[in-house]
């Protein structure tokens, strides 16, 4: 399974990267590659252009701002997992990262990339939603901030325009009761259903086209999850109830 042909670009600045996305027809951003490259290998994605942002300088920091923690585009999930800043200010994020795939994948995958990829069964989008964080996007017109509630549009579909790059994910500081529970078939797999708690807020993943907030008292209300090989809609709703119960039991 080999990728179909593409032109490869490795811009040296954010401006150059955004310019490429704006000017090239049918281009995709390559960050960690842990989600994109499998799609290329399967030829499920056949972009004409790949814009590799891994060489962009100054985009690999985790820093405090505005009462929360900003994680820049090139921060690897493995580094975020170890971050003292996140551990101190927003421990839900490192806790969630322990459930993301496996260490070897986390060595390369990025926090922002996972959020931008918008897989409804992924952990980090739901964490962003539960915490009411935001994504910073840079486009040809400049920078904008997109609240988590507006960011996830559908399965693998975010609010990013084709000529925008997500440069940062911002998580509000939160040290209240929190947790992430998911039910997956094997260790590290995408979850059949998952739940994230930040205080009184609950976000679910794997049970809708995007991560969704839910009522801890009746988390499966209004849910219409899809069915697949491993879980029917009914089973997903059942798991949601179980996971929520566990999260709010303490």
């Amino acid at each position: 399974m080999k990728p179909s042909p593409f032109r490869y670009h490795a811009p040296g600045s954010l401006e150059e990267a955004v310019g490429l996305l704006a000017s090239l027809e049918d281009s995709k951003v390559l960050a960690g590659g842990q989600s994109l490259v499998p799609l290329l290998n399967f030829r499920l994605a056949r972009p004409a252009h790949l814009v590799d942002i891994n060489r962009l300088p100054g985009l690999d920091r985790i820093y405090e701002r505005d009462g929360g923690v900003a994680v820049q585009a090139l921060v690897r999930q493995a580094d975020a997992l170890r971050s003292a800043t996140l551990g101190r200010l927003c421990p839900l994020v490192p806790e969630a990262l322990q459930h993301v795939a496996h260490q070897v994948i986390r060595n390369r995958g990025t926090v922002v990339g996972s959020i931008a990829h918008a897989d409804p069964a992924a952990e980090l989008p739901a964490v962003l939603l539960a915490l009411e964080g935001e994504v910073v996007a840079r486009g040809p017109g400049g920078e904008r901030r997109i609240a988590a509630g507006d960011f996830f549009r559908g399965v693998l579909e975010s609010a990013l325009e084709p000529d925008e790059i997500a440069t940062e994910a911002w998580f509000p500081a939160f040290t209240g009761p929190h947790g992430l529970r998911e039910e997956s078939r094997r260790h590290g797999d995408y979850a059949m259903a998952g739940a994230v708690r930040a205080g009184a807020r609950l976000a679910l993943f794997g049970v809708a086209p995007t991560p969704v907030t839910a009522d801890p008292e009746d988390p499966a209300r209004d849910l219409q999850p899809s069915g697949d090989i491993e879980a029917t809609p009914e089973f997903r709703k059942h798991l949601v109830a179980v996971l929520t119960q566990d999260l709010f039991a303490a």
Partner: protein
Amino acid sequence: MTTRWFGERVPRREDARLLRGAGRFTDDVGEQALEGCFVRSPYAHARVLTVDASAARRHPGVHAVYTARDLPFGERDLPLLIPHPALTHGRTQRCLAGSTVRYAGEAVAFVVADNRYVAEDAADLVEVEYEPLPVVWPLEAAAEARALVHDDVPGNVAAELTQESGDVDRALASASHRRRFRFRYERGAAAPLEARATWARWDAHEGRLTMYDSTQSPTSIRGGLAVLFGLPESSVEVIAPDVGGGFGPKIMLFYPDEILVPFAAMRLRRPVKWTEDRREHFTAVNHERGQVHEVEVGHDAEGRLLALDVDFINDAGAYTPYGIILPIITAGQIPGPYRVPSYRVRFRDLYTNATPTSPYRGAGRPHACFVMERTLDAIAADLGVAREEVRRRNLIQADQFPYDVGVAWQDGNRVVYDSGDYPGLLDKALHQLGPRPAGDHIGMGLGMYVEGTGVGPYEGAHVQVLVGGKVIASTALPTQGQAHATVFAQLVADQLGVAPDDVTVTTGDTRRFQWGVGTFASRAAVVAGNAMAVAAGMVAEKAKRIAAEHLEVDEADLELVGGQVRVKGSPDRGLPLAAVAVLSNPVRYAFGGGTEAATQFAPRPRPGPPLPAGEQPGLEATGYFSPTGSAWASGCHAAWVRVDPRTLRLEILRYVVVHDCGRVINPTVLEGQIQGGVAQGIGGAFYERLAYDAEAQLRNASFMEFLMPYATEIPDVVIDHQETPSPLNPLGVKGAGEAGVIPVGAVIASAVEEALGVSITEMPLSPLRLFELTRPPA
């Protein structure tokens, strides 16, 4: 000989190169070979109307695109490997599909290009026009036969066979207790981590075809290619180099690439290779295990079996290249280690529009075990008797061997168990299992099995002591991780009085040894192992003969110890084996290495010609072993399992295997095989599933969705042994390669049934399935 090495935990000889990444797997061979790629049918059943390869052929970097029309053998069906009189409607596919494709993944065209990237680009350009036909799927639909896989096979029935031992109808009629069951086993996949690969080179000067193939039977590939291409066998070499797991599907032959790659190499006068990718592996490589059983059992008030009547259908897939061996094995193995006074088994092998089937580790036995073990568990539940007790009451006893089950076995003989101690296995397993752990929703799993191993027709071995003193040995069957280079070295070392480190073993290379069958059905240690011992024994005898002449002693006074041939009781009177090797070859020219001792003016031990009549030069011998019947291994698995009632997740708290493969050559290697087999069994029972949709399209052809277990899903298995040597071979060994996997499905089902209080009659299971079973729709 010594028995120094037999039974020892000799560390593996093959590890160093594998640990350094210096193994040589088929895709490693390289040599600037062109690379191939298949165009495969996306439809499970369709007419192929047109195949237009013109754009693909024009693509830069493409050297050829073959369709059925382009092949001189394009209209020839591939061989039907194991014919059987009951296989009245056997069908095999063509190398590339002609007018009809019958499973999604069937090969339609073969592209050869500079590399795989270009080949895939070109494959995208091949335009095939299909006319979809009604799909026969799943297995039950094949039985209903509203549509046919092959137009000329009525009812989709490839074969039908009924066998009976005793009088089932009478026994059932007079039984005080009768029960009926239906069991369903879905097909599964072996999924070795090295997918298949083939590499071939045609040397036009020497008229020789050389092929590397990730196969479990190089000799069969060689023979088949020689026939197909009209070459003398001596002009065809097939080597199975390092192979990254076999587990059965690599014994299947011929896969289309095994013909197309050498064909392209000969046509294009360049080396050509093809390496399967993971996605195509899922549909291009054979599966196994789809069966549905209707069972009726008659028993008495004590739970003793009186009659067993089984009627099952077997999912052949779209073709039957491997004949009906699998359902024959299932039919032969259902009785297992139990006395079944009257047994009748009928099977129909049915075509479906899915990937063909051929053996996968266990090869028909997991289903057989499932049927019998679930039946016994049901009897136990009905009578309120402990599951182990019902088994005890039915087990064949240690004094009842040889035990003739009364039905056919896969070697053309009957199922006759040679030796065993089944009650001993059960007792040991329960002892090792220990008491029930504390906690809720815990169940005990129990499963016993027998396994016919060491099937013939034969294997051979060549053993030679080189003039430098090192020993080389070779056998035709190949290796996929079973440590043959270590285990066979132990057997040879014992015969020759050297250390395993002094013995270098080559397997699976027709250039080194050309007569043999293959590695499958837990037969290598039994058949090739005994051949090694025979050949090495012959070398030992020759060494003594030669040494006796030179030392002027009786052969009977000599022994082979520590690399020497020496007089028993006088360890300083002897000759190094290396010197005997020199002496075995009378030379004119002393070219070094001690050969002066074998020249014409050196002291002559006896009158007559330098090479006596009937003697051959060299300290070497070739020996064979051909078994009269299978050696029957056996075992008992037991487990404590918990099922979380809320998430339906499986936790294996303790898993025990007590098994009997006769005398054990290398316990470490054996335990590795068992642990690995249990892991595959757990995967097949609870994680892996081939998810076909109604159109017989495989929905989960990737490792992301076909869930092979990681380390987190597999516990350490507690392994204990029992040894009842086989009387059927000199070493007393029985095979062990499949032992770990056979009863796992039954064990998990048994445990889950107790843990959740629901009846389990199918495989595989999953949290979803358990959710559905425990919460029936309102």
